[in-house]
């Protein structure tokens, strides 16, 4: 049987490539275990649930990752050209069957497991008695509206919108329900209270995003989208825009304040007083 003599340096190349892949695998596993750059702590039971699913996924994909990369490194080193005969085979139906079924069970099972959290966020509405807050995005600011003592949203009109003269949502002054609507550039919610948000936008697509809530939802022109959350840890959290909305996308920022019920009531009273 005619064969070419293996190229010089083949062992060195095999060794180097296998070593790089092993080193890369070890460093990657270390980085994911060290968590130097990681999620901020979750501030809701929902967020904790998301984190648990993330860890499940991380463990499963991590095992597959390590096995596949180390397997690749192994065959590269082990089966470098040493002038031997190859082991001739063209496939193995049993193996194909086994790893197909195994990956179906693993991947689809993982997907099904993760659907609980999604269902909780989206299939169920907010709990009864939830505090309603309307969130409106515009280039490049967020506005948060509370219905006020009457519990009714006042009418808004596009032609009345004027961010420069202090009516960013275009509230209609002739509508009595609009008179007590509180519009704030930051968001206040009481801790441990179910909050239902109505997300909308005036101009282009934005995305309401609070890392600590593990929530992100696009604000889509022409739509009002409902989401709900229950934040249990008081504090100041940044709200960012997560959908490219124009040149000021990177600075379309606001704050979510999760405060005690007493502080929340005080904030609402101050806002109402400012409206008078």
């Amino acid at each position, binding site marked *: *049987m005619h*064969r070419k003599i293996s*190229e010089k340096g*083949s062992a060195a*190349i*095999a060794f180097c490539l296998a070593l790089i*892949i092993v080193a890369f695998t070890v460093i*990657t596993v270390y980085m994911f275990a060290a968590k*130097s*750059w*990681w*999620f901020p702590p979750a501030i809701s039971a929902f967020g904790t*649930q*998301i984190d648990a*699913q993330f860890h499940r996924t991380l463990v*499963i994909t991590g095992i597959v990752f390590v096995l596949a990369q180390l397997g*690749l490194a192994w065959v*590269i080193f082990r*089966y*470098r*050209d*040493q002038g031997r005969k*190859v*082991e001739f085979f063209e*496939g193995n139906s049993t*193996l194909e069957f086994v*790893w*197909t079924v195994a*990956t*179906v069970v693993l*991947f689809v099972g*993982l*997907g099904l497991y993760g*659907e*609980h959290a*999604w269902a909780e*966020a*989206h299939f169920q509405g907010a709990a009864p008695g939830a505090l309603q807050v309307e969130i409106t995005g*515009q280039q490049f600011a967020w506005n948060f509206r509370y219905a006020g003592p009457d519990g009714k949203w006042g009418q808004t009109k*596009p032609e009345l*919108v004027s961010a*420069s003269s202090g009516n960013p949502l*275009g509230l209609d002054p002739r509508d009595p329900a609009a008179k007590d609507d509180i519009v704030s550039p930051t968001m206040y919610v009481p801790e441990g209270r179910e909050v239902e948000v109505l997300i909308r936008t*005036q*101009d*282009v*697509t934005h995305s309401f*995003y609070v890392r600590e809530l593990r929530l992100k*939802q*696009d604000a*889509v*022109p*022409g*739509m009002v*989208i409902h989401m709900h959350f229950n934040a249990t840890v008081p504090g100041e959290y940044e709200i960012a825009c*997560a959908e*490219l909305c*124009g040149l000021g996308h*990177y*600075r379309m920022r606001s704050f979510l304040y999760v405060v005690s019920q007493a502080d929340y009531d005080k904030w609402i009273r101050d806002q109402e007083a400012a409206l008078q």
Partner: protein
Amino acid sequence: MVTHESGGHHHPPTGFIRKYIFSVDHKVIGIQYYFLALFSVFLGMTLSLLMRIHLVWPAAKLPFTPGGVMTPEQYLALVTMHGTIMVFMVLTTAPQSGFGNYILPIQIGAEDMAFPVLNMLSFWVTFVSLMVMVTAFFVTGGAPISGWTAYPTLSALGQITGPGQGAGQTLWVIGLGIFCVASLLGALNFITTTIDLRAKGMTFGRLPLTVWAWLITAVLALLAFGVLLAACILLLLDRTAGTSFFIPGGLVVTDTPITWHKGGSPLLWQHLFWFFGHPEVYIAILPGMGVASHVLSTFSRKPVFGYRAMVGAMCAIGFLGFCVWGHHMFISGMSPYSAFAFSLMTMTIGVPSAIKTFNWLGTLWGAQIRFTTAMLFALGFVSLFVTGGLSGLFLAQPSLDLYLHDTYFVVAHFHLIMGVAAIFGIFSATYFWYPKMFGRMLNESIGRLHFWITFVGVYCIFMPMHFLGLAGHPRRYADLTGVNFLAPLHAVHYFITISAMVVITMQLLFLFNFFYSMKAGKIAGDNPYEATTLEWAIPSPPPFDNFAGQVPVVYRGAYEFGVPGAHADFIPQHLVPAKAGRSH
């Protein structure tokens, strides 16, 4: 199967223009596509380099930024054009239109593509598309700032939503529409050629996996680009003719009510775009899978493990690729119930991808690996494909997507899988077929150096991006000071930028090798790798009609390496059985 018309409707042209510019020869057209992609990839890399420098040194004085310091809108224009040029002009063009054009007809034993004039037209329409897009940089307001996904209403309302959203965005959408036409023409040609022009004995079961990959990619392109073309036309009408396909009523942009639009839906664009956009990912990566399978088998000196499973997996990926577009839209406001279905379909598409990985490892198992540069890039492809594919299992779950969507985690994922894995497929193909295309070998020492730096480098660029994403870093941020939680991430950005500068600079090694070897490379000969498929049966470079009038007959499958009892460790597909020894 159609036999070839013999007796010269197809003479080699003599003039320079008919030979090299408006050529109908698939080989010249393939090289034209390749050069278009080569120009585009260096343009796209330069744009990304400027973005990386700006993120880390925002006050840096850069070339091409009037006024010296880069503005947010200039940054976003780079984001848009980098994505658009890389996805369409590089990842769609080089592996399919470039190598597919050059190699596919030869590998199936055809003298040319089925429609040579249409083939020429496809290339020149692509060229026009690139010119139109690049022109967007030079019009008032500059290039568009809405990203390669161009979501309305940002992309639909015109100048009022931002600089670049006027003439720049219009040119962008026209350019993209033209590209769709070119891709449709190309896809028709690929499918017809593969079905009709196979040589005697070249049954579907004997096709090289590269041909299967190009065929399936062409089917995907035929079904996907038509939808994108429709979307582009609707968007163009919204922008220029006052229609409202994507624009609802009642909008107010910077205190100006938009009164002339009503009744449209921004989500319609997203559905149309991603119905194209997800198959597009596979249009970019399938040819790379084909090349990886082909190169791994050739330099393992072993048959591909599970040929039928490989073909089946590619077909499954092609089919499922059309059923998963909604996973780009989990947080778009789309029905959460359909998100459930899209999620499960997406987890399912991981299965054929895993099958391919197992079979590549199976091909390497028991091999005698020859570490050519082409092989190194194919091995790198497998590693990148695993890494980039697994992060998809996070993003496929809508509950995790609530956090990870539109963060750098996504940027890391798609750059690894459809960006650099596909690029590694292109590099592998380049090192592998360069000798056939230009008659000389690429320099292996420079090639290996290029591989080491690129392989380590792309991991240094894109792995840290996962951690930016886990820390919640949104993508497409022109500046890192707008949000406080980005402050601790500067060190990571710094590392990424330095890595990108090294990797991009080192691509000049490849460019040097590419042009230097045309003149000074080792003479290749017909079959420098002892490979089996038909392109190695003819001279390098091949004559005008590929087989000099003697179209070979095919006697066996494409990967007869190491067959016990054979005279050599490889049996070419066209070798008559009597000469092969005990053929498998």
